[in-house]
């Protein structure tokens, strides 16, 4: 089966006065039909830029500098603007992080849903209004017939996120990219929105690229996970494998630093902080913070190594030729897997 979306060696750079800085650096992943891929990373790791690159919405000084993005057999990077506009919304839809700012405050929410349908020629003006009501009902907004005439400020944050989901689903896309869809929301509202996304995904047989920094959200929603750090995907694998047997020290560190051990115990924090993209250390970008660092880590960037069934990690701990030189602590971690 060929993947619905295949991203290969995607590199997106931002031109700075000195030199281009890669925000997304040689990133490859695939999303199968009906699958949810969770893209997890901290701020500045490049996960949102990855989403924008797929939609070809990266604004200057940013630009896609290389790679291929194949969606349904079409290479998106070679499409002309008109063909790309037809893909956006109808083939791939994007749900933004901020439900407070992603809606236009001066238009009724119904008109904003209808606009998507009209732009893609999916409905006449009259049909579009009726369809907007249907969509609001589908995302379970109470009393959709009158809510359709509301302005965004009349809706709560959770309701606005539901409207954004309705807009994204209006033209029945096959892939939805949700960029931190619940970050601005309270935890009870977050739970409702995640339930809604899961339900919509099943009902409309969507594929979902879910971008988040929250490992809890990933565990509940994703089938497979890609972990990003400093512009690169450092680990990919099935969700269970990532949580049970993380193959990269960064993934392991993220999981260990979450509260949940005994109350009052010190958390196992990762030392240091996320490096600036313009000033990455040589070798593996995580090496200055890595508890398992050894010789090859500072020399060259690690390639992908198999770390388990369908699991890969960019880490020399998985390279048999270095096995004899690995630090004891690292061997313990690898054995524990």
């Amino acid at each position, binding site marked *: 089966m060929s993947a619905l979306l295949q991203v290969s060696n995607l590199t997106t750079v931002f031109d700075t006065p000195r030199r281009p800085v890669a925000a997304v650096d040689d990133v490859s992943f695939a999303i199968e039909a009906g699958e949810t891929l969770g893209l997890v990373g*901290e*701020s500045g790791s490049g996960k949102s830029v990855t989403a924008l690159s797929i939609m070809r919405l990266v604004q200057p000084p940013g630009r896609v500098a290389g790679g291929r993005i194949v969606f349904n057999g079409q290479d998106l990077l070679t499409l002309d603007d008109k063909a790309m506009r037809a893909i956006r919304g109808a083939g791939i839809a994007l749900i933004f992080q901020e439900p407070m700012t992603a809606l236009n405050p001066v238009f009724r929410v119904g008109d904003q849903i209808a606009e998507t349908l009209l732009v893609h020629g999916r409905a006449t003006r009259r049909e579009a209004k009726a369809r907007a009501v249907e969509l609001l009902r589908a995302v379970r907004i109470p009393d959709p017939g009158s809510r359709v005439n509301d302005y965004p400020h009349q809706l709560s944050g959770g309701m606005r996120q539901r409207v954004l989901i309705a807009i994204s689903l209006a033209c029945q896309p096959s892939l939805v990219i949700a960029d931190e869809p619940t970050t601005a929301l*309270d*935890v*009870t*509202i*977050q*739970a*409702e929105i*995640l*339930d809604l996304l899961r339900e919509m995904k099943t009902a409309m047989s969507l594929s979902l690229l879910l971008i988040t*920094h*929250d*490992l*809890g*959200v*990933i*565990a*509940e929603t994703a089938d497979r996970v890609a972990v990003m750090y400093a512009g690169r995907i450092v680990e990919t694998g099935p*969700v*269970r494998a990532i*949580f049970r047997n993380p193959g990269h020290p960064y993934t392991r*560190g*993220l*999981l260990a*630093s*979450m*509260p*949940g*051990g005994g*109350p*009052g*115990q*010190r*958390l*196992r*924090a*990762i*030392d240091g*902080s*996320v490096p600036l993209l313009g000033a990455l250390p040589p070798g593996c970008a995580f090496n200055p*913070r890595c508890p398992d660092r050894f010789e090859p880590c500072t020399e060259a960037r690690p390639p992908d190594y198999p770390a388990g069934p369908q699991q890969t990690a960019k880490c020399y701990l998985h390279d048999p030729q270095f096995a004899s030189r690995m630090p004891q602590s690292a061997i313990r971690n690898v054995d524990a897997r």
Partner: protein
Amino acid sequence: MSTLVEVSHLVKQFTRDAGLFRKGTAVAAVDDVSFSIGKGEMFGLVGESGSGKTTTGRCMLRLVEPTSGEVRFRGDNVLAFSRRRMRETRRDMQIVFQDPYSSLNPRMRARQIVEEPLIIHRLGARAERQERVAELFRLVGLNPVHLDRYPHQFSGGQRQRIGLARALALNPSFLILDEPVSALDVSVQAQVVNLLMDLQQQLKLTYLFIAHDLRLVEHICSRVAVMYLGKIVEMGPTASLFAAPQHPYTRALLSAIPVPDPDAPRQRIVLDPTTVNRSTALREITTGHFAAI
């Protein structure tokens, strides 16, 4: 354990002025809230946005003037204090804000930010103050070499450490931490949480920890109060409250936390707001565990 802070029947109403076509209305952001914090305790105040947790914290320092109620600190009602006495008392009660990006003055060097409270309270000569600032920097895990940098030259975690150093400058015994790590990256959160726990031990501090992240509160706090629409609906020892939540809102809130385990059973409890009677008073369910049911 003796009581350090006691809040009783605290009320803060925000009024909305009458407009041309509208009557003036009053909204109680904090509605008859009472709790007490023992010396050396880490007390958690949790709730969602709009629950009144931040307003409660600010009322306690009189950064917002409460409408009525009492806030007793070391036995005295700070709401009755003169401005002068309040200012002196604030040496002992400090606050760390949520957002390390907007809570530090971008035009001041880290040194000035940490030194400012000492100047305001006229503590020490210049040389002593400089020494104290360097000491505070080390205390929160920063290198005094960087004292002359501006806030933007520090990472989010480091900025939060600067905020903490400033709050600790006057040797307070009580610290209000308002979402101190929620703006930080996951990998940095844990460092700051560890620092907060270390400092509490080392300096025998008392914390009011205001947060929406229940996992964090469960980890840090010995006692918790849950706020919903301006009221405390449940309060008790953390272990007891998390193991056996009594109020329907607490149950819904706990069930909504995404568990970082793909195999964890999911049992979402959805709150039906009509089942919550806002006038129900707190009653003791088990020792020290209260719920408004």
